């Protein structure tokens, strides 16, 4: 169950859309914010609000990089592995961050704080290598710098 206020908010978003499903990505994002990830219950809620079948929501949810159909940590760490970051030594960054966090790429730390993922170009190629923690973009990274940033990000939570 989601709170009435969130439900009303989402219904308003759908009502202002050209067609209900135009609001699908926004609705999935808001539900994900509420649950922490897009749970089965969230998929059902989304399908009711959007007037779609759960399968239709699933079809969308699994398409996007930023919609998570599995539990994730409080913060996502996205490390760019595209060409400019690769070129500037980013290749080892992901592996070494994984080692630092004591997890494999794709996993969540035991305290539930971070999930580590590789990702496509973050549009910060001039300051490669780059990562994004939550919505914050960081460039010109070394492993040491990245570790410092993670310390700061986890104390902000």
């Amino acid at each position, binding site marked *: 169950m989601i709170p009435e206020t969130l439900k009303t908010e989402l219904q308003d978003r759908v009502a202002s859309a050209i067609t209900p499903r135009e609001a699908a990505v926004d609705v999935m994002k808001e539900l994900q914010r509420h649950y922490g990830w897009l749970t089965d219950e969230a998929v059902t809620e989304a399908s009711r609000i959007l007037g779609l079948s759960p399968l239709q929501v699933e079809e969308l949810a699994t398409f996007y990089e*930023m919609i998570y159909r599995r539990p994730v940590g409080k913060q996502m760490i996205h490390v760019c592995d595209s060409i400019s970051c690769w070129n500037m030594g980013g290749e080892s960054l992901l592996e070494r961050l994984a080692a630092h966090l004591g997890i494999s790429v794709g996993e969540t730390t035991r305290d539930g704080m971070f999930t580590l993922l590789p990702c496509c*170009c973050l549009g910060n190629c001039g300051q490669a290598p780059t990562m994004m923690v939550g919505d914050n973009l960081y460039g010109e990274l070394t492993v040491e710098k990245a570790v410092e940033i993670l310390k700061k990000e986890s104390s902000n939570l």
Partner: protein
Amino acid sequence: MEQILFRHNKPNRCVTFDEYRAEGGFSALAKALKELSPDQVQQAVIDSGLRGRGGAGFPTGKKWSFLARNVPGPRWLICNSDEMEPGTYKDRTLLEANPYLLLEGIALTSYAIGVSHAFIFIRRGYEQAAANLRRGVAECRQAGLVGENILGSGFSCEIDVHVSAGRYICGEETALMNALEGKRANPRSKPPFPAIKGLWGGPTVVNNVESLSNIPAIISNGAEWFKAFGRIPEAAGTKLFCVSGHVSTCACFELPMGISLGEIIEGPCNGMRPDSRFKACLPGGASTPYFTEEHWNVPMDFDAVAKAGSRLGTGGIVVFDQNTCMVAATLNLVRFYARESCGWCTPCREGLPYVVNLLEEIENGRGSEEYIAILRDHINLLKYAFCALALGAMGPVEGLLKHFQDEVREHIAKGKCPFKK
């Protein structure tokens, strides 16, 4: 140098709405609504020689002129701000410094093509740019520049900002329309082209951020003024070149269209890094065949770059020095495309992982001579894929075989990567 797109930029912050207006912002919109017919606006853009900055370089005014006329129901304008092409960060740079040029450009374009509802489709991760745009739309609405009856002219236009959830294929214009409609973002078949049947079946124009941001200055100053920026006769306007890699200064520069590659690197980029020598570059984003030293003097304009065997693409220049293994670089690029394949058609879904595998084998010293022929075959075979993603993926492979075949052979002959210590 006089600039078009970065003209209002302030150091380290976004220009404000008041500053933009005080510096003449939105006067092009006011002028058009008062003095020009929609067709006159379109004609000015045709005359200016502006070509699309999203990658394909299609003439912008001409694209507008294809829009189906006299069909019932709404028509749409979409600004493509997906920008997920590796090596490309020009639209972000522009929107973080100044969202108003784009908003004015969208209003002008909507007026020219008879659109009353425009969308800005922006990628995930561009939160600052999206916030600037949302704030900008609200400010414009307050000032009567967006919404009902703009500046009392009787022309109305809404602008919506849609923030995506991340997927490279959403930048392909027909996939983008599916994404906006809330469908899985696989591309659609063309024809029908968006200009005839696009968003919700209505006639639709899709233009890039940089393309649309050029419109206000064209309307204010005229087509001839805009053309005069070009360094060579065919070139018009300026271009945002965003540079990354082994140069001293990596940044996004607004430079005259048609400036040579060498001038960009030796000029604003301040040359190569201290221990680096230029070996190659991607001239225009991840899908463009490599340029090498022999291309130093090629004018960076659509036709000139195409004539030299590559594409101007997005203007994202990625520079590699002498220590870069071009097989490994190509492998990184094709891996990106294989992962981002939307899975809709077999040549791309199955073919790209196969190409990745071939390149991996060569890079790891397990390749053989026949792999080169198989790679070459795939450059042709992937032309049969459903959309341009797969073709783009093979751009770097084509460049690799054309300019670095010796390096590929060295991997095969030595049974290892010559760059690995």
